[in-house]
């Protein structure tokens, strides 16, 4: 029984660790890969936010999800405009693939939840997700970015996602 719980916990930990490990792996990505990772990270959070808007009845959670959809859409619109201007084609890579895979698993798992259980799962995951993305921005993506405009956009992104992380943490504390 205890063993079963432990293996479930280990599996959960492994899932959580996956994107971080994949990000650490991609040392020194190029601008096309960075753009793809940043854009993908945004799109995944938009998808999570839309799921929350479809499922949650909690006003604070819905307001937060609305903010995620709005802000990440704005940043990604800007990212698309920038790569078009620079003539860069975002390039898929193991990091963005790992992020997408982990997020798809979460969406599927959370689809089965409802009410307070869904709210808690969504908000807790938003805290973890923004931590992971912010860690990657700070340690890898921003230092690796070559183009000045891309770097500036990522820096605005880091400030924004740090706000989102704090907001999610506050919200998570309130849901307990």
């Amino acid at each position, binding site marked *: 029984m205890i063993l079963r719980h432990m293996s479930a916990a280990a599996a959960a930990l492994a899932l959580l660790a996956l994107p971080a490990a994949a990000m650490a792996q991609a040392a020194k990505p190029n601008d096309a890969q960075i753009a793809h990772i940043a854009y993908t990270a945004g799109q995944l959070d938009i998808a999570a936010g839309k799921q929350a808007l479809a499922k949650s009845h909690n006003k604070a959670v819905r307001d937060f999800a609305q903010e995620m959809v*709005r*802000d990440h859409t*704005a*940043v990604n619109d800007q990212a698309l405009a920038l790569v078009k201007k620079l003539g860069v084609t975002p390039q898929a890579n193991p990091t963005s693939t790992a992020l997408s895979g982990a997020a798809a698993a979460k969406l599927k798992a959370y689809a089965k939840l409802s009410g307070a259980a869904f709210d808690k799962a969504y908000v807790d995951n938003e805290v973890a997700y923004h931590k992971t993305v912010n860690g990657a921005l700070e340690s890898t993506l921003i230092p690796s970015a070559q183009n000045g405009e891309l770097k500036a956009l990522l*820096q*605005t992104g880091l*400030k924004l996602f740090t*706000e989102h992380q*704090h*907001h999610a943490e506050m919200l998570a504390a309130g849901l307990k």
Partner: protein
Amino acid sequence: MIAKPVSTFAQRALAAAAALAILAVAVAGCAKPAQPRTFTVTIAQMAYGPTPPSMRVGDSIKWVNADILQHTATAKDGSFDVDLPPKATATTRIAHAGTVDFYCRYHPGMTGRLSVAG
């Protein structure tokens, strides 16, 4: 030969009149309420730009959101709350003296302060 300062009655009268005139202008300047001014505070890259150092009651702030994101300028004391989509501007008239802290409702880590003289 030492030049002796010449001071006629007429000259002294003129000097006194001039001094009075300057005083009168100064008094009028104080009594007349100052023209309200509009200061611009620009929001860019998740931060408020500098706020004016010498605001008075009746002045206005023109908020310019130059960021790609939607922000608000929300007074902690409730005296103003403007919602600014990207590229939007809005003007707030400051009606009370004192220090007003403001923040963004969407990104509460964004903060600023207005100091308003009476």
